[in-house]
């Protein structure tokens, strides 16, 4: 969708047109879902996050002020939703861990490994997971990622550097 059309569509949705909002959702559902899946690596959870995010979008669409790209704003929303989910998820004592295991095993090893790395990132510091996902997976450049996360461009560069260094050092530890 070209930016002008998108802008139009958003304005119509903000004015309360259900059709426009529906079209907007339709166009962005996959983007949201994809990012949500990258975040949690489980289809059901990703669908959950996506639904939450769509509901949030319905509520917040009037707050979008056309100052930045819609996608920037949308990613912010998705990240917030995913963080909320993660926090709630960690509160749940993981009694349903057993139920998670089969699907865990069914997935190929690289997925499991990837999740381990992302967990490591969480332990290294705040903001690393989203930075990695935005830049390395979604292919944003540093400036765009910085805008989405509301930090300085140099922060993104530093985070990536820090992350690689740390990962390399933990890897070294594994080998030795």
């Amino acid at each position, binding site marked *: 969708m070209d930016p002008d059309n998108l802008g139009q569509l958003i304005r119509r949705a903000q004015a309360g047109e259900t059709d426009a909002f529906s079209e907007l959702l339709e166009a962005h559902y996959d983007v949201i879902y994809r990012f949500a899946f990258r975040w949690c690596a489980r289809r059901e959870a990703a669908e959950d996050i996506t*639904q939450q995010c769509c509901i949030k979008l319905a509520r917040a669409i009037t707050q979008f002020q056309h100052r930045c790209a819609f996608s920037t704003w949308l990613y912010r929303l998705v990240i*917030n*939703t995913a963080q909320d989910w993660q926090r709630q998820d960690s509160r749940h004592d993981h009694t349903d861990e057993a139920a998670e295991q089969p699907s865990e095993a069914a997935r190929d090893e690289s997925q499991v490994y990837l999740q381990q790395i992302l967990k490591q990132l969480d332990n290294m510091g705040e903001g690393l997971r989203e930075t*990695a996902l935005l830049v390395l997976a979604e292919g944003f450049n540093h400036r765009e990622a910085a805008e989405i996360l509301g930090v300085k461009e140099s922060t993104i560069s530093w985070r990536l550097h820090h992350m690689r260094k740390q990962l390399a050092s933990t890897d070294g530890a594994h080998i030795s």
Partner: protein
Amino acid sequence: MTDIDKLLQQQDIPPADPRARQAAMRAALDEFAQVQQAAQGSPENNRSSSQGFWQRLRLIKDATLRNIVMTSSTTRTLFAGLAAASVTVLGLFVVLPALLTVSPPSIDENEVILSDINMPSPQEAAAHDPMIEEIVVSGYAKPEGARTPEAPPASTVSKALRASYPDAMHMAVSAAPMTADSVTRPIPQNRDKFSTQQENPVKRTVDEPVSTFSVDVDTASYSYVRRQLNHGVLPAKNAVRAEEMLNYFDYAYSTPTNREQPFLPSIAVTDAPWAEGKKLLHIGIKGYDLSDQQKPKTNLVFLLDVSGSMNNPDKLPLVKQAMDMLLGSLNPDDTVAIVVYAGAAGTVLEPTAVKDKQKIVTAMRNLEAGGSTAGAEGIKQAYQLAEANFDKNAVNRVILATDGDFNVGISDTEQLKGYIERKRDQGIFLSVLGFGQGNYNDKLMQILAQNGNGVAAYIDTLSEAQKVLVQEANAALFPIAKDVKVQLEFNPKKVAEYRLIGYETRLLNREDFNNDKVDAGDIGAGHSVTALYELTLTDSDAKLIDDSRYTKNAAKKSDNSNEYGYLKLRYKLPKESESKLLQRPITNADTQVDSDLQREVAFATAVAGFAQQLTGSVYLNNFSYDDIIALAQANKGDDLYGYRTEFIQLVRKAKIAQEI
């Protein structure tokens, strides 16, 4: 290290289930329709959309899905129904046989008496039996019947809903601005966080003659305690901080007249009402109050949490009302800016002069709760605005209003603390206003406010907002001294043991007192600070610690024998980095004080007694809630704003809550 790059790029993402997609779309469209409807209805109503988990329950129209998402309240209703049904059946089993065994004799009797009537008994018995049965059934079923699954009255369900989740109740209740003094809502499951603390122990003067602490003018604990007691629940022990309860009240101490020496200590030594043979040392410090002409210009940046959890009548709407009040107490030249943080973080209002009130009010009115919380980013944005508008002759302050949840982990609390400290050194201070409950993070708020040279206040009602932001606006906005530390050296010849009541989180090391690098509490214009020590004199037999067999009290200079101890107070004027010292001895003369001070001291003693009672202190002996009520009642003085009367009510409520 290219593993992560490769893995992320090659990650295999399974497509979403089309049904899930549909459900999500439908839910979002539903929400959209609701938001639109609310927006058309009235601008005030669009806050009433629900938050969190419940919206999903409401939005999923599919009955089968709803059954899967079985919540605690639906299970409760279901189980109540099942229980009722089984009680009924059990009742039948127990009572019927008993009645059946009783009825044959009565049939026999009929037979005997009415022997000449043809075949009366079987019919009569048959007519009798169902009747008995019916009575039994209805007798047992009636009270329970109301709760059987066949007839679940809507009110029961909704009550259960309300009891367990106030958010859900919010769907039904319109978000009208709160005007009532206290919202009586059932306590939800409590996720409020408080740091654990231990009561200060009794210390021997010989071992440790010096006691050092930082002042604390926060009042958050008292408001929180009040809120819990108004719900009929005793507050968690960790939520009770004696010093904050003491400092909630304004005491009529004598006021200093000189801005350069902005403090005047009022000291009294009285008998401790809860332990025979012990004394109470009362230290009251009143700060200098500014007149209207002396008030410096004020640059305020409000940092408001508008995350979904703030969507309660006692949160965001109360924040707005509180801000409205504060606007009224500012000068026309002062500026106000508003930053929000949540899903859509950003500046809502650039720094605007208070005389442009309409603009500020409009910006405030448009605020809405929704989205999640990202506290750290919001704080940075607020500080940037404060910096942009920095005036070194003005008071530059960020006021954070939140219900507590920051989207940051433990390691980042440290980072946030450091950030706030650096900004404090640049001259931008931070105050924290806490709202609501269920998610309240007391510990983090305390940390932030203490590091930002500000106050942390907990606002539960409109009248509390009035107290903090209007009556005590000077104190909250204009610091007259910072890093105020108190050090007491007791005279071992006179005082055998001492115990500081409260201030557990504010204790300092002895050497910190003279170290100007060590941060301590701040005092705003007109603030008063009160501290109480419980003393046991050397000639008293109420001592708790035995004398040491080997270390003899070395006889020191005996010319100070009429001194209890020596009080030292260190403070810095707001713009200075070198501290000043104020000192005076505490002597026998301090046992004789005028009646005004005596009254204030007695009231403070009642408050301290209450705080200790709530924390389950081991030093109170038989001092009861009734004693506290009597003491406070006798000493409440003029009590212009009714705070002390309210205190007495709270003690009564605590007494009742205790008995339950």
